[in-house]
């Protein structure tokens, strides 16, 4: 039991180790570092558990909050033992008036509802029938349902959606728009898992804008894909391992637009727990001007 509590609250113990890894800032990584990264990614069979926290702020310059966030953490009945289960969704609504809020709110609820319905028997009973759809199919149908709902009920509006379904040690991510999912590794790497569906990103990829030009591009806020918009919606859906020993971070552009990767890592590492980490991330975005609504969800796998 003591062991369990240490696992649960033991993030401080790991801190010195992480600092060591981080202080070696020079590239390329040493063989030892690479080995430690690889070792960390080895598949283990210990009981794992998810913990998560969220943070939100309207920001300093907006009057309404059009962001929505959902965090659902549990375990589900697996073959022999329970498997960690988590659903985390960040949505950033748009379209002015109250509609942005309607769109983002509908998106998280419909996605949350759809996923919960699919996993209902695993979450609350012992399953008698196995789930027929794959995890990616569950996420895809959830996104489509939300897309159709927003088109029907809040026409003209739209929302970004970045949703992560964590099951065991893998996570299936569905993504539309310019909210982001990051894998934050204990050695200081902050990997962007999603690709922004924004005009500026697209023009940058095509080589029509340099990084500097992109920074000052007037239409930075123009999305080329959003939930609720367009005849056809194709979400990016993919499955990647949960960052071993690290964190999954979901956030709206209110955070990533003003706080850089290095600061994000520093804040997450220095915080005594996930709640404080989320709070500090939101504060950092507000300290940087808070030009937009800010939403973060931070998830960690312990044990």
């Amino acid at each position: 039991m003591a062991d369990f509590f240490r696992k649960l609250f033991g993030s401080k113990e790991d801190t010195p180790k992480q600092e060591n890894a981080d202080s070696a800032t020079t590239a390329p990584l040493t063989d030892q570092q690479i080995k430690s990264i690889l070792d960390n990614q080895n598949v283990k069979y210990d009981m794992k558990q998810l913990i998560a926290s969220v943070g939100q702020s309207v920001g300093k310059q907006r009057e309404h909050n059009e962001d929505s966030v959902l965090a659902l953490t549990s375990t589900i009945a697996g073959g022999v033992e329970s498997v960690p289960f988590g659903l985390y969704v960040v949505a950033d609504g748009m379209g002015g008036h109250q509609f942005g809020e309607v769109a983002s709110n509908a998106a998280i609820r419909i996605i949350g509802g759809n996923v919960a319905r699919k996993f209902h028997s695993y979450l609350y009973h012992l399953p008698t029938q196995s789930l027929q759809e794959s995890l990616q199919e569950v996420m895809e149908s959830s996104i489509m349902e939300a897309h159709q709902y927003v088109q029907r009920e809040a026409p003209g509006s739209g929302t970004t959606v970045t949703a992560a379904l964590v099951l065991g040690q893998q996570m299936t991510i569905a993504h539309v728009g310019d909210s982001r999912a990051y894998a934050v590794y204990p050695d200081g790497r902050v990997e962007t898992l999603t690709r922004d569906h924004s005009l500026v990103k697209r023009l940058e990829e095509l080589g029509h804008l340099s990084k500097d030009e992109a920074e000052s591009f007037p239409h930075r806020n123009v999305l080329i894909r959003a939930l609720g918009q367009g005849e056809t919606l194709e979400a990016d859906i993919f499955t990647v391992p949960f960052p071993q020993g690290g964190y999954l971070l979901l956030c709206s552009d209110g955070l990533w637009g003003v706080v850089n990767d290095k600061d994000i890592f520093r804040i997450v590492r220095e915080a005594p727990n996930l709640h404080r980490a989320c709070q500090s991330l939101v504060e950092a975005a507000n300290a940087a001007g808070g030009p937009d609504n800010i939403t973060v969800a931070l998830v960690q796998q312990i044990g």
Partner: protein
Amino acid sequence: MGSVYRARDMHFPNVAKLVAVKEMINLAPDPLVRQTIVQNFEREANILATLHHPSIPRIYDYFSHNDHSYLVLEFIHGKDLEAVLNDTNGFLPEDQIISWAVQLCDVLAYLHDHKPDPIIFRDMKPSNVMINQNGDVMLVDFGIAKTFQSGQKGTMIGTEGYSPPEQYRGEATPLADIYSLGATLHHAATRRDPRLEPPFSFAERPIRRINPNISVEFEAVINTALQYNPGDRFPNASAMKEALINVARKTGALSKITSALPVSSGGIKPLWSFKCEDEIRGTPVLHQGALFIGCYDNNLYALNAADGQFQWKYATEGGIVSRPLVYDNNVFFGSEDYRLHVISARTGKVAWTYYTEGKIYSSPRIADGHIFFGSEDQYLHAVNVSSGRAVWKLLSDAPIYSSPLVANELVYFGTESGSFYALDFRGETKWRFQAKRAITSSPVNKGQAVYMASLDSTLYALDAISGWAIWKFRLGKGSISSPALADDFIFVGASDGFIYCIDARTSKEVWRFRTENQVGSSPVVYKDSVYCGSADGFMYCLEYRTGRLRWKFETQGPITGSPAVFDDIVYFGSTDHHVYALFA
């Protein structure tokens, strides 16, 4: 929101005059929005009323009733280009596309020359191009008056994939219509829907790479129309029309001359070949300069890999289809004589054999001092490598033809009833997954996922630890082929005759390559090529990122086994009784 109805004009009761009635339902709660919608509708009616062109439908009337507004238009017998594309298999002929393109240039030129102000169609896309009974085009849907509002997030105009980059800057010029026409033609020529691709990515999908039947000249015209900078496109629709007519003259496209590009297969000579006495359906393995391969003449052959010289053979009492495994200078393989044979790799003398109760098609795997394999007797056997004694065996629900995979300290395999098992090293079932039909395919693993195909026409990605289906990919038909992995790609054959390449993260198809018969062979990746046999008798070598054919080599019988590639040489057997060695 709206619909289009086919209606009969009752002003002419004695004849059946068909008209199209386009309905708009105005449900917008915001009065300003409502007003805009009505204005757009009347605008479309007014534009149409002033136009007279064979490719533009005539307007007869318009009216509004409560929340509903209606346009009465000339009825067009036919279907739109998007439907034409969806309903055709394979590519449309170039001359067909060119003749439509010429007509579309014609109508665009008419609109752009409209006085007093040019009319910008703004919404050129296949679904707005009707092809009538005579095969002529009609441009429909003049209702979309798109204006650009900057500032607020979510100005989503022009996401459909046909719109030019400058639309984001709020510019609507005749050159924007040229771009959209280029995009429409690109879609028609390649069958790749730009709405499913990132915007402005046409250059990443060169037309002739997708459809080699398109001429270089026509491709150049489409590419010019699709130039990123408006100034680099055709200056106007008439210029584009002229370019198209020149293409048609030069390539003879309008006189319906099509060129086929045959790929030669005669050029490749095998390095060596070796004839056995019966069909070879299995897969060879290489070890220290020797090639080991089982044959339906009941023998396991050892050949010199360099020149195909016979070294020795070892006779069993049944056909050998499993892939041998070399471990500690012994060759391990199962046979239809119910036995696992272990023989010296050097001399071919038997070390020991192990009996099961059924034929063995499953190939053995060794891990942690144990050898794992399945049998027709429905057991997964775990045998001690040195003693040859059974350590445990697990009774599954059906014969096991799939070869086990050992990874993550688990043993994975499929059965002929469609069950997929993950056992720990003690033989306890860790989890089980059920496909709809047999899993003959052998699983492969990368990171935390295992991949295998099933006869239920699905390629599965399962979570290696929990057994959850991460994704499923629909194949055209069932598959017994075992997937191969390289980078983030998965390669697998299926009995629909295709070799597929799937993105392992997203489960999206990257490419597929058509062979002329079932692909039961399992692909093998070596350097930047994928090698795979087909029941059409050919061994194919494809560039693995694009699926382009590098070469193919014909044998006289179906190839069901998989190749082994080593030191730039491909080794494989065919049911024509031969073992072949080719330069990779």
